[in-house]
Protein backbone atom coordinates (compact mmCIF):
# COMPACT_ATOMS: atom_id res chain seq x y z
CA UNK A 1 0.00 0.00 0.00
CA UNK A 2 1.35 3.46 -0.84
CA UNK A 3 2.45 5.75 2.01
CA UNK A 4 -0.35 8.28 1.59
CA UNK A 5 -2.99 5.55 1.80
CA UNK A 6 -1.33 4.02 4.88
CA UNK A 7 -1.52 7.38 6.65
CA UNK A 8 -5.16 7.71 5.60
CA UNK A 9 -5.89 4.22 6.94
CA UNK A 10 -4.21 5.07 10.25
CA UNK A 11 -6.17 8.30 10.57
CA UNK A 12 -9.46 6.48 9.99
CA UNK A 13 -8.56 3.82 12.57
CA UNK A 14 -7.45 6.43 15.07
CA UNK A 15 -10.87 8.04 14.73
CA UNK A 16 -12.85 4.78 14.77
CA UNK A 17 -11.09 1.46 15.26
CA UNK A 18 -14.33 -0.53 15.11
CA UNK A 19 -14.78 -0.24 11.34
CA UNK A 20 -14.62 -3.65 9.69
CA UNK A 21 -11.93 -4.41 7.08
CA UNK A 22 -14.62 -4.63 4.40
CA UNK A 23 -15.80 -1.08 5.17
CA UNK A 24 -12.22 0.19 5.35
CA UNK A 25 -11.50 -1.28 1.93
CA UNK A 26 -14.56 0.48 0.51
CA UNK A 27 -13.71 3.80 2.13
CA UNK A 28 -10.13 3.68 0.85
CA UNK A 29 -11.11 2.19 -2.50
CA UNK A 30 -8.55 -0.60 -2.11
CA UNK A 31 -8.85 -4.40 -2.29
CA UNK A 32 -9.94 -6.12 0.94
CA UNK A 33 -6.86 -8.38 1.06
CA UNK A 34 -4.51 -5.43 0.77
CA UNK A 35 -6.24 -3.64 3.66
CA UNK A 36 -6.16 -6.76 5.88
CA UNK A 37 -2.50 -7.39 5.06
CA UNK A 38 -1.52 -3.76 5.75
CA UNK A 39 -3.37 -3.64 9.07
CA UNK A 40 -1.61 -6.86 10.16
CA UNK A 41 1.76 -5.44 9.16
CA UNK A 42 1.07 -2.19 11.01
CA UNK A 43 0.16 -4.20 14.11
CA UNK A 44 3.26 -6.39 13.88
CA UNK A 45 5.61 -3.46 13.32
CA UNK A 46 4.30 -1.67 16.40
CA UNK A 47 2.78 1.25 14.53
CA UNK A 48 -0.69 0.21 15.62
CA UNK A 49 -0.03 -0.54 19.29
CA UNK A 50 -3.50 -1.15 20.63
CA UNK A 51 -7.21 -0.56 19.91
CA UNK A 52 -8.77 1.20 22.85
CA UNK A 53 -11.87 3.16 23.81
CA UNK A 54 -12.05 6.58 25.36
CA UNK A 55 -14.37 6.27 28.35
CA UNK A 56 -15.89 9.18 30.18
CA UNK A 57 -15.60 7.61 33.66
CA UNK A 58 -17.29 10.61 35.25
CA UNK A 59 -20.54 9.38 33.72
CA UNK A 60 -20.20 5.89 35.18
CA UNK A 61 -22.17 5.50 38.41
CA UNK A 62 -20.35 4.74 41.67
CA UNK A 63 -17.04 5.38 40.02
CA UNK A 64 -14.05 6.65 41.99
CA UNK A 65 -11.71 6.73 39.03
CA UNK A 66 -8.95 9.22 39.70
CA UNK A 67 -6.09 10.48 37.55
CA UNK A 68 -2.93 12.20 38.76
CA UNK A 69 -0.11 13.84 36.87
CA UNK A 70 3.19 13.69 38.72
CA UNK A 71 6.18 15.90 37.93
CA UNK A 72 9.32 13.96 38.75
CA UNK A 73 12.86 15.31 39.08
CA UNK A 74 15.51 12.62 38.70
CA UNK A 75 19.28 12.24 38.52
CA UNK A 76 20.19 10.87 35.08
CA UNK A 77 22.64 7.96 35.08
CA UNK A 78 25.85 7.64 33.09
CA UNK A 79 25.33 5.98 29.68
CA UNK A 80 21.61 5.26 30.10
CA UNK A 81 20.56 8.87 30.85
CA UNK A 82 16.90 9.02 31.76
CA UNK A 83 15.90 5.81 29.98
CA UNK A 84 16.72 3.48 32.81
CA UNK A 85 14.61 5.27 35.42
CA UNK A 86 11.81 5.86 32.90
CA UNK A 87 11.66 2.10 32.21
CA UNK A 88 11.48 1.33 35.91
CA UNK A 89 8.59 3.70 36.31
CA UNK A 90 6.53 2.72 33.26
CA UNK A 91 6.50 -0.94 34.28
CA UNK A 92 4.19 -0.20 37.24
CA UNK A 93 0.73 -1.21 36.00
CA UNK A 94 -0.98 1.87 37.45
CA UNK A 95 1.22 4.15 35.32
CA UNK A 96 -0.69 5.25 32.21
CA UNK A 97 2.04 7.25 30.52
CA UNK A 98 5.56 8.55 31.00
CA UNK A 99 7.09 11.47 29.09
CA UNK A 100 10.59 12.97 29.23
CA UNK A 101 10.07 16.72 29.51
CA UNK A 102 12.10 19.86 28.99
CA UNK A 103 11.85 22.59 31.62
CA UNK A 104 11.36 22.59 35.37
CA UNK A 105 11.25 18.82 35.88
CA UNK A 106 12.35 15.71 33.99
CA UNK A 107 9.62 13.10 33.78
CA UNK A 108 5.87 13.55 33.60
CA UNK A 109 4.10 10.47 34.94
CA UNK A 110 0.36 9.97 34.58
CA UNK A 111 -1.19 7.42 36.89
CA UNK A 112 -4.70 6.16 37.28
CA UNK A 113 -5.85 4.67 40.55
CA UNK A 114 -9.16 3.69 42.04
CA UNK A 115 -8.78 5.82 45.14
CA UNK A 116 -6.79 8.81 46.25
CA UNK A 117 -5.20 6.60 48.90
CA UNK A 118 -3.82 4.29 46.25
CA UNK A 119 -2.31 7.20 44.36
CA UNK A 120 -0.75 8.50 47.56
CA UNK A 121 0.67 5.09 48.33
CA UNK A 122 2.16 4.76 44.86
CA UNK A 123 3.88 8.13 45.12
CA UNK A 124 5.15 7.78 48.64
CA UNK A 125 6.07 4.11 48.69
CA UNK A 126 7.07 3.29 45.11
CA UNK A 127 7.97 6.39 43.12
CA UNK A 128 9.69 8.55 45.76
CA UNK A 129 11.75 5.67 47.06
CA UNK A 130 13.47 5.00 43.74
CA UNK A 131 17.17 5.83 43.93
CA UNK A 132 17.31 8.37 41.11
CA UNK A 133 14.18 10.27 42.13
CA UNK A 134 14.99 13.63 43.70
CA UNK A 135 11.48 15.03 44.12
CA UNK A 136 7.86 14.62 43.05
CA UNK A 137 4.93 17.02 42.72
CA UNK A 138 1.50 15.42 42.37
CA UNK A 139 -1.43 17.13 40.62
CA UNK A 140 -4.89 15.55 40.60
CA UNK A 141 -7.09 16.01 37.56
CA UNK A 142 -10.36 17.51 38.76
CA UNK A 143 -12.32 17.36 35.52
CA UNK A 144 -11.60 16.21 31.98
CA UNK A 145 -12.77 18.66 29.32
CA UNK A 146 -10.92 17.20 26.36
CA UNK A 147 -8.84 14.03 26.13
CA UNK A 148 -7.08 12.57 23.11
CA UNK A 149 -8.90 14.99 20.84
CA UNK A 150 -12.33 14.11 22.23
CA UNK A 151 -14.41 16.81 23.92
CA UNK A 152 -15.97 15.42 27.12
CA UNK A 153 -18.31 18.03 28.54
CA UNK A 154 -20.19 19.51 25.60
CA UNK A 155 -20.79 17.24 22.67
CA UNK A 156 -21.58 19.08 19.46
CA UNK A 157 -24.62 17.12 18.34
CA UNK A 158 -25.97 17.24 14.80
CA UNK A 159 -28.12 20.35 14.77
CA UNK A 160 -29.18 20.10 11.12
CA UNK A 161 -32.80 19.74 10.04
CA UNK A 162 -33.64 16.31 8.61
CA UNK A 163 -34.18 17.44 5.02
CA UNK A 164 -32.54 20.53 3.55
CA UNK A 165 -31.93 21.75 -0.03
Amino acid at each position, binding site marked *: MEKGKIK*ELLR*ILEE*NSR*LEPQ*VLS*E*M*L*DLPLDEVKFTVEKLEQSGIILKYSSIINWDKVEENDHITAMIDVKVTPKREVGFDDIARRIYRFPEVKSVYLMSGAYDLSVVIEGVTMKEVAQFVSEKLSTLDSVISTTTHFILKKYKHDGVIFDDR*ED*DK*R*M*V*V*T*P
Partner: protein
Amino acid sequence: MNKIDTFILNPRLSKTIQSIPPSGIRRFFDLASSMAGVISLGVGEPDFVTPWKMREASISALERGYTTYTANSGLPELKKEISKYLQREFRLDYNPEKEIVVTVGASEAIDIALRAILDPGDEVIVVEPSYVSYAPVVSLAGGIPVTVATDKTSSFKLTPEAFEEKISRRTKAVIFCYPNNPTGAIMTGKELERVAEIVVKHDLLVISDEIYAELTYDRKHDSFAAIKGMFDRTILISGFSKAFAMTGWRIGFAAGPPDVIQAMIKIHQYTILCAPIMGQMAAIEALKNGMREKDEMVNSYRQRRNYMVKALREIGLSTHEPEGAFYMFPSIESTGLTSEEFAEGLIMKEKVAVVPGNVFGQGGEGHIRCSYATSMEQLQEAVKRIKRYLDSL
Protein backbone atom coordinates in the same frame (compact mmCIF):
# COMPACT_ATOMS: atom_id res chain seq x y z
CA MET B 1 -55.22 23.12 -8.55
CA ASN B 2 -54.21 24.96 -11.69
CA LYS B 3 -52.88 28.49 -11.93
CA ILE B 4 -56.16 30.19 -12.82
CA ASP B 5 -57.99 28.65 -9.84
CA THR B 6 -55.31 30.00 -7.55
CA PHE B 7 -55.62 33.51 -8.94
CA ILE B 8 -59.34 33.47 -8.35
CA LEU B 9 -58.86 32.11 -4.83
CA ASN B 10 -56.45 34.78 -3.74
CA PRO B 11 -56.56 37.92 -5.85
CA ARG B 12 -54.37 39.90 -3.50
CA LEU B 13 -51.30 37.76 -4.18
CA SER B 14 -49.22 38.22 -7.31
CA LYS B 15 -49.83 35.90 -10.25
CA THR B 16 -46.15 35.11 -10.38
CA ILE B 17 -45.88 33.90 -6.82
CA GLN B 18 -49.05 31.84 -7.15
CA SER B 19 -47.77 30.17 -10.29
CA ILE B 20 -44.71 28.85 -8.47
CA PRO B 21 -45.26 25.48 -6.78
CA PRO B 22 -43.96 25.01 -3.23
CA SER B 23 -40.63 23.19 -2.95
CA GLY B 24 -41.01 19.41 -3.16
CA ILE B 25 -38.40 19.11 -0.44
CA ARG B 26 -40.76 20.78 2.01
CA ARG B 27 -43.16 17.81 2.09
CA PHE B 28 -40.36 15.39 2.90
CA PHE B 29 -39.02 17.71 5.53
CA ASP B 30 -42.44 17.76 7.23
CA LEU B 31 -42.75 13.98 6.96
CA ALA B 32 -39.26 13.26 8.31
CA SER B 33 -39.52 15.87 11.08
CA SER B 34 -42.66 14.29 12.44
CA MET B 35 -40.89 10.98 13.12
CA ALA B 36 -38.33 9.99 15.77
CA GLY B 37 -35.20 7.93 15.14
CA VAL B 38 -34.87 8.89 11.49
CA ILE B 39 -31.50 8.47 9.80
CA SER B 40 -31.31 11.37 7.41
CA LEU B 41 -29.59 11.17 4.05
CA GLY B 42 -31.72 14.13 3.07
CA VAL B 43 -29.47 16.84 4.34
CA GLY B 44 -27.91 19.26 1.87
CA GLU B 45 -25.22 20.58 4.14
CA PRO B 46 -22.01 19.39 5.81
CA ASP B 47 -22.28 17.37 9.02
CA PHE B 48 -19.28 19.23 10.40
CA VAL B 49 -19.67 22.25 12.63
CA THR B 50 -17.87 25.33 11.25
CA PRO B 51 -14.20 24.84 12.22
CA TRP B 52 -13.37 26.56 15.49
CA LYS B 53 -10.95 29.11 14.05
CA MET B 54 -13.73 30.67 11.94
CA ARG B 55 -16.12 30.66 14.88
CA GLU B 56 -13.41 32.20 17.04
CA ALA B 57 -12.69 34.90 14.46
CA SER B 58 -16.34 35.87 14.52
CA ILE B 59 -16.55 35.89 18.32
CA SER B 60 -13.41 38.01 18.46
CA ALA B 61 -14.90 40.44 15.93
CA LEU B 62 -17.98 40.79 18.14
CA GLU B 63 -15.82 41.37 21.22
CA ARG B 64 -13.99 44.14 19.39
CA GLY B 65 -17.27 45.80 18.52
CA TYR B 66 -17.66 44.84 14.86
CA THR B 67 -21.44 45.00 14.86
CA THR B 68 -22.02 47.49 12.05
CA TYR B 69 -23.02 47.60 8.38
CA THR B 70 -20.20 47.04 5.93
CA ALA B 71 -19.71 48.51 2.46
CA ASN B 72 -22.64 47.35 0.28
CA SER B 73 -20.49 45.08 -1.82
CA GLY B 74 -18.72 43.57 1.20
CA LEU B 75 -15.68 44.18 3.39
CA PRO B 76 -12.77 45.26 1.15
CA GLU B 77 -10.48 42.77 2.92
CA LEU B 78 -12.87 39.89 2.21
CA LYS B 79 -13.20 40.85 -1.46
CA LYS B 80 -9.41 40.97 -1.72
CA GLU B 81 -9.14 37.50 -0.18
CA ILE B 82 -11.83 36.17 -2.55
CA SER B 83 -9.93 37.65 -5.49
CA LYS B 84 -6.67 36.05 -4.30
CA TYR B 85 -8.43 32.72 -3.80
CA LEU B 86 -9.96 32.71 -7.30
CA GLN B 87 -6.56 33.56 -8.79
CA ARG B 88 -4.78 30.87 -6.74
CA GLU B 89 -7.27 28.08 -7.37
CA PHE B 90 -8.68 28.77 -10.83
CA ARG B 91 -6.32 31.36 -12.39
CA LEU B 92 -9.07 33.93 -12.59
CA ASP B 93 -8.19 37.61 -12.29
CA TYR B 94 -11.04 39.57 -10.75
CA ASN B 95 -10.68 43.16 -9.61
CA PRO B 96 -11.95 43.04 -6.01
CA GLU B 97 -13.33 46.57 -6.21
CA LYS B 98 -15.40 46.26 -9.36
CA GLU B 99 -15.91 42.61 -10.14
CA ILE B 100 -16.83 40.94 -6.84
CA VAL B 101 -19.88 41.31 -4.60
CA VAL B 102 -20.36 39.60 -1.23
CA THR B 103 -23.92 38.35 -0.76
CA VAL B 104 -26.17 36.67 1.77
CA GLY B 105 -25.39 33.16 0.65
CA ALA B 106 -24.92 31.99 -2.93
CA SER B 107 -28.74 31.95 -3.17
CA GLU B 108 -28.93 35.73 -3.01
CA ALA B 109 -26.13 36.00 -5.57
CA ILE B 110 -28.16 33.87 -8.01
CA ASP B 111 -31.28 35.91 -7.37
CA ILE B 112 -29.67 39.31 -7.95
CA ALA B 113 -27.70 38.03 -10.94
CA LEU B 114 -30.96 37.02 -12.62
CA ARG B 115 -32.69 40.25 -11.68
CA ALA B 116 -29.73 42.23 -13.01
CA ILE B 117 -29.83 40.66 -16.47
CA LEU B 118 -33.47 39.76 -17.18
CA ASP B 119 -36.28 41.72 -18.77
CA PRO B 120 -39.83 40.34 -18.62
CA GLY B 121 -40.20 37.42 -20.99
CA ASP B 122 -36.51 36.67 -21.34
CA GLU B 123 -35.79 32.96 -21.29
CA VAL B 124 -33.20 31.29 -19.09
CA ILE B 125 -32.11 27.74 -19.70
CA VAL B 126 -32.03 25.74 -16.47
CA VAL B 127 -30.01 22.54 -16.58
CA GLU B 128 -31.81 19.84 -14.60
CA PRO B 129 -31.74 17.91 -12.32
CA SER B 130 -30.75 20.98 -10.39
CA TYR B 131 -30.90 22.77 -7.09
CA VAL B 132 -34.58 23.36 -6.44
CA SER B 133 -34.60 27.15 -6.58
CA TYR B 134 -33.21 27.96 -10.04
CA ALA B 135 -36.43 27.81 -12.06
CA PRO B 136 -38.57 29.61 -9.42
CA VAL B 137 -36.00 32.40 -9.04
CA VAL B 138 -35.96 32.89 -12.81
CA SER B 139 -39.76 33.29 -12.67
CA LEU B 140 -39.54 35.68 -9.72
CA ALA B 141 -37.12 37.81 -11.74
CA GLY B 142 -39.70 38.03 -14.54
CA GLY B 143 -38.00 35.51 -16.78
CA ILE B 144 -39.20 32.24 -18.23
CA PRO B 145 -37.32 29.13 -17.16
CA VAL B 146 -36.73 26.67 -19.99
CA THR B 147 -35.47 23.40 -18.64
CA VAL B 148 -33.05 21.04 -20.32
CA ALA B 149 -32.77 17.56 -18.87
CA THR B 150 -29.58 15.63 -18.31
CA ASP B 151 -29.64 11.95 -17.49
CA LYS B 152 -27.50 8.97 -16.61
CA THR B 153 -26.70 8.19 -20.25
CA SER B 154 -24.56 11.34 -20.30
CA SER B 155 -23.52 10.94 -16.63
CA PHE B 156 -25.76 13.92 -15.85
CA LYS B 157 -23.56 16.28 -17.88
CA LEU B 158 -24.93 18.96 -20.18
CA THR B 159 -24.46 17.96 -23.80
CA PRO B 160 -24.09 20.74 -26.40
CA GLU B 161 -26.81 19.14 -28.56
CA ALA B 162 -29.46 19.08 -25.81
CA PHE B 163 -28.45 22.60 -24.79
CA GLU B 164 -28.66 24.12 -28.27
CA GLU B 165 -32.03 22.53 -28.93
CA LYS B 166 -33.60 24.66 -26.17
CA ILE B 167 -32.17 27.99 -27.30
CA SER B 168 -34.60 30.47 -28.85
CA ARG B 169 -34.35 34.11 -29.89
CA ARG B 170 -35.50 35.06 -26.40
CA THR B 171 -32.84 33.08 -24.58
CA LYS B 172 -30.71 35.40 -22.47
CA ALA B 173 -28.75 33.10 -20.22
CA VAL B 174 -28.14 29.59 -18.97
CA ILE B 175 -27.77 28.51 -15.34
CA PHE B 176 -26.07 25.34 -14.16
CA CYS B 177 -24.24 23.93 -11.19
CA TYR B 178 -21.14 21.75 -11.36
CA PRO B 179 -20.20 19.86 -9.21
CA ASN B 180 -23.91 19.22 -9.20
CA ASN B 181 -26.56 19.08 -6.54
CA PRO B 182 -28.26 16.50 -6.64
CA THR B 183 -26.25 14.17 -8.90
CA GLY B 184 -22.64 14.82 -7.84
CA ALA B 185 -21.67 15.07 -11.52
CA ILE B 186 -18.86 17.37 -12.59
CA MET B 187 -17.85 18.61 -16.04
CA THR B 188 -14.25 18.69 -17.23
CA GLY B 189 -12.64 21.65 -18.96
CA LYS B 190 -12.91 19.89 -22.32
CA GLU B 191 -16.63 19.24 -21.87
CA LEU B 192 -17.20 22.84 -20.79
CA GLU B 193 -15.40 24.10 -23.90
CA ARG B 194 -18.06 22.49 -26.08
CA VAL B 195 -20.79 24.19 -24.05
CA ALA B 196 -18.87 27.48 -24.36
CA GLU B 197 -18.97 27.28 -28.16
CA ILE B 198 -22.78 27.28 -28.07
CA VAL B 199 -22.76 30.15 -25.55
CA VAL B 200 -20.68 32.28 -27.93
CA LYS B 201 -22.68 31.26 -30.98
CA HIS B 202 -25.93 32.46 -29.40
CA ASP B 203 -24.43 35.37 -27.44
CA LEU B 204 -25.57 34.17 -24.02
CA LEU B 205 -24.65 34.91 -20.43
CA VAL B 206 -23.85 32.09 -18.04
CA ILE B 207 -24.65 31.82 -14.36
CA SER B 208 -22.23 29.20 -13.17
CA ASP B 209 -23.03 28.02 -9.64
CA GLU B 210 -19.72 26.69 -8.34
CA ILE B 211 -20.61 26.45 -4.66
CA TYR B 212 -19.28 22.85 -4.58
CA ALA B 213 -16.02 23.70 -6.40
CA GLU B 214 -13.91 22.66 -3.41
CA LEU B 215 -15.65 19.33 -3.08
CA THR B 216 -14.22 17.23 -5.88
CA TYR B 217 -12.63 13.85 -5.32
CA ASP B 218 -10.86 12.62 -8.42
CA ARG B 219 -9.80 15.78 -10.21
CA LYS B 220 -9.58 19.50 -9.53
CA HIS B 221 -12.57 21.63 -10.41
CA ASP B 222 -12.49 23.54 -13.71
CA SER B 223 -14.21 26.90 -13.37
CA PHE B 224 -16.45 27.82 -16.28
CA ALA B 225 -15.16 31.42 -16.15
CA ALA B 226 -11.66 30.09 -16.91
CA ILE B 227 -12.76 28.52 -20.21
CA LYS B 228 -11.51 30.47 -23.22
CA GLY B 229 -13.79 33.35 -24.10
CA MET B 230 -16.05 32.85 -21.07
CA PHE B 231 -14.56 35.29 -18.54
CA ASP B 232 -16.65 38.18 -19.80
CA ARG B 233 -19.82 36.09 -20.16
CA THR B 234 -19.81 34.27 -16.84
CA ILE B 235 -21.26 35.25 -13.50
CA LEU B 236 -19.44 32.92 -11.15
CA ILE B 237 -21.43 32.13 -8.02
CA SER B 238 -19.90 30.62 -4.91
CA GLY B 239 -19.80 30.89 -1.14
CA PHE B 240 -18.57 29.50 2.10
CA SER B 241 -21.44 27.19 3.09
CA LYS B 242 -20.33 23.89 1.64
CA ALA B 243 -16.51 23.97 1.56
CA PHE B 244 -16.08 25.47 5.01
CA ALA B 245 -19.21 24.05 6.68
CA MET B 246 -20.61 27.57 7.11
CA THR B 247 -24.21 27.14 5.95
CA GLY B 248 -25.81 29.15 8.72
CA TRP B 249 -23.52 32.15 8.25
CA ARG B 250 -25.09 32.98 4.88
CA ILE B 251 -22.00 34.32 3.16
CA GLY B 252 -21.76 33.92 -0.61
CA PHE B 253 -20.31 35.91 -3.45
CA ALA B 254 -20.50 36.55 -7.17
CA ALA B 255 -17.63 37.43 -9.48
CA GLY B 256 -18.15 38.59 -13.03
CA PRO B 257 -17.92 41.35 -15.59
CA PRO B 258 -18.03 44.82 -13.98
CA ASP B 259 -21.26 45.98 -15.68
CA VAL B 260 -23.18 42.97 -14.38
CA ILE B 261 -21.61 43.05 -10.91
CA GLN B 262 -22.31 46.80 -10.56
CA ALA B 263 -25.95 46.18 -11.55
CA MET B 264 -26.13 43.37 -9.00
CA ILE B 265 -24.70 45.65 -6.31
CA LYS B 266 -27.45 48.17 -7.11
CA ILE B 267 -30.15 45.58 -6.35
CA HIS B 268 -28.23 44.28 -3.35
CA GLN B 269 -27.89 47.74 -1.81
CA TYR B 270 -31.59 48.57 -2.23
CA THR B 271 -32.77 45.25 -0.79
CA ILE B 272 -30.26 43.52 1.46
CA LEU B 273 -27.86 46.43 2.06
CA CYS B 274 -24.96 44.18 3.01
CA ALA B 275 -24.09 40.73 4.29
CA PRO B 276 -23.69 40.46 8.08
CA ILE B 277 -20.29 41.64 9.26
CA MET B 278 -19.66 38.76 11.73
CA GLY B 279 -20.05 36.25 8.92
CA GLN B 280 -17.77 38.25 6.65
CA MET B 281 -15.09 38.29 9.37
CA ALA B 282 -15.36 34.49 9.68
CA ALA B 283 -15.12 34.17 5.89
CA ILE B 284 -11.85 36.16 5.84
CA GLU B 285 -10.43 33.72 8.38
CA ALA B 286 -11.67 30.76 6.29
CA LEU B 287 -9.81 31.92 3.19
CA LYS B 288 -6.68 32.91 5.07
CA ASN B 289 -6.31 29.98 7.45
CA GLY B 290 -9.10 27.46 6.91
CA MET B 291 -7.80 25.44 3.98
CA ARG B 292 -6.36 22.62 6.07
CA GLU B 293 -9.66 22.09 7.85
CA LYS B 294 -11.43 22.17 4.49
CA ASP B 295 -9.06 19.53 3.10
CA GLU B 296 -9.73 17.27 6.09
CA MET B 297 -13.49 17.54 5.58
CA VAL B 298 -13.17 16.85 1.86
CA ASN B 299 -11.11 13.76 2.65
CA SER B 300 -13.85 12.46 4.93
CA TYR B 301 -16.48 13.01 2.23
CA ARG B 302 -14.31 11.12 -0.26
CA GLN B 303 -14.00 8.11 2.06
CA ARG B 304 -17.75 8.09 2.66
CA ARG B 305 -18.47 8.46 -1.06
CA ASN B 306 -16.23 5.47 -1.79
CA TYR B 307 -18.06 3.42 0.82
CA MET B 308 -21.56 4.47 -0.24
CA VAL B 309 -21.06 3.87 -3.97
CA LYS B 310 -19.90 0.30 -3.37
CA ALA B 311 -22.44 -0.39 -0.62
CA LEU B 312 -25.43 0.83 -2.65
CA ARG B 313 -24.31 -1.06 -5.74
CA GLU B 314 -23.90 -4.22 -3.65
CA ILE B 315 -27.48 -4.04 -2.42
CA GLY B 316 -28.69 -3.64 -5.99
CA LEU B 317 -29.11 0.09 -6.59
CA SER B 318 -27.47 1.18 -9.80
CA THR B 319 -25.45 4.27 -8.93
CA HIS B 320 -23.52 6.69 -11.08
CA GLU B 321 -20.27 7.53 -9.25
CA PRO B 322 -20.45 11.10 -7.97
CA GLU B 323 -17.22 13.01 -8.61
CA GLY B 324 -18.08 16.06 -6.56
CA ALA B 325 -20.41 17.61 -3.96
CA PHE B 326 -21.68 15.20 -1.29
CA TYR B 327 -24.67 13.66 -2.99
CA MET B 328 -25.30 10.51 -4.91
CA PHE B 329 -28.24 9.92 -7.17
CA PRO B 330 -28.93 6.19 -7.37
CA SER B 331 -31.53 4.88 -9.78
CA ILE B 332 -34.56 3.20 -8.21
CA GLU B 333 -36.18 2.37 -11.55
CA SER B 334 -35.65 -1.37 -10.99
CA THR B 335 -38.17 -1.27 -8.13
CA GLY B 336 -40.97 -0.08 -10.44
CA LEU B 337 -41.84 2.68 -7.98
CA THR B 338 -41.81 6.41 -8.63
CA SER B 339 -39.17 8.33 -6.71
CA GLU B 340 -41.85 9.77 -4.40
CA GLU B 341 -43.34 6.34 -3.69
CA PHE B 342 -39.89 4.91 -3.02
CA ALA B 343 -38.84 7.75 -0.70
CA GLU B 344 -42.14 7.73 1.17
CA GLY B 345 -42.06 3.95 1.64
CA LEU B 346 -38.46 4.07 2.82
CA ILE B 347 -39.14 6.64 5.48
CA MET B 348 -42.36 5.02 6.68
CA LYS B 349 -41.02 1.47 6.81
CA GLU B 350 -37.35 1.94 7.67
CA LYS B 351 -37.05 5.54 8.88
CA VAL B 352 -34.42 6.58 6.36
CA ALA B 353 -34.95 10.01 4.83
CA VAL B 354 -33.88 10.55 1.22
CA VAL B 355 -35.15 13.13 -1.26
CA PRO B 356 -37.14 11.93 -4.28
CA GLY B 357 -35.37 12.80 -7.54
CA ASN B 358 -38.41 14.36 -9.19
CA VAL B 359 -38.22 17.45 -6.95
CA PHE B 360 -35.00 18.39 -8.76
CA GLY B 361 -36.80 18.69 -12.07
CA GLN B 362 -36.52 16.98 -15.44
CA GLY B 363 -34.31 13.91 -15.51
CA GLY B 364 -34.65 13.44 -11.75
CA GLU B 365 -37.54 10.95 -11.82
CA GLY B 366 -36.47 7.37 -11.20
CA HIS B 367 -33.75 8.47 -8.78
CA ILE B 368 -33.33 9.45 -5.16
CA ARG B 369 -30.85 11.91 -3.71
CA CYS B 370 -28.77 10.52 -0.85
CA SER B 371 -26.41 12.86 0.94
CA TYR B 372 -23.36 11.20 2.46
CA ALA B 373 -22.52 14.18 4.66
CA THR B 374 -23.33 11.99 7.66
CA SER B 375 -21.20 9.86 9.99
CA MET B 376 -19.92 6.45 8.84
CA GLU B 377 -21.98 4.75 11.57
CA GLN B 378 -25.16 6.38 10.27
CA LEU B 379 -24.28 5.52 6.67
CA GLN B 380 -23.68 1.86 7.52
CA GLU B 381 -26.99 1.65 9.37
CA ALA B 382 -28.79 3.45 6.53
CA VAL B 383 -27.45 0.96 3.97
CA LYS B 384 -28.67 -1.95 6.14
CA ARG B 385 -32.13 -0.42 6.33
CA ILE B 386 -32.31 0.39 2.60
CA LYS B 387 -31.38 -3.23 1.85
CA ARG B 388 -34.15 -4.46 4.15
CA TYR B 389 -36.58 -2.11 2.38
CA LEU B 390 -35.52 -3.30 -1.07
CA ASP B 391 -35.92 -6.94 0.02
CA SER B 392 -39.44 -6.19 1.25
CA LEU B 393 -40.62 -4.81 -2.09
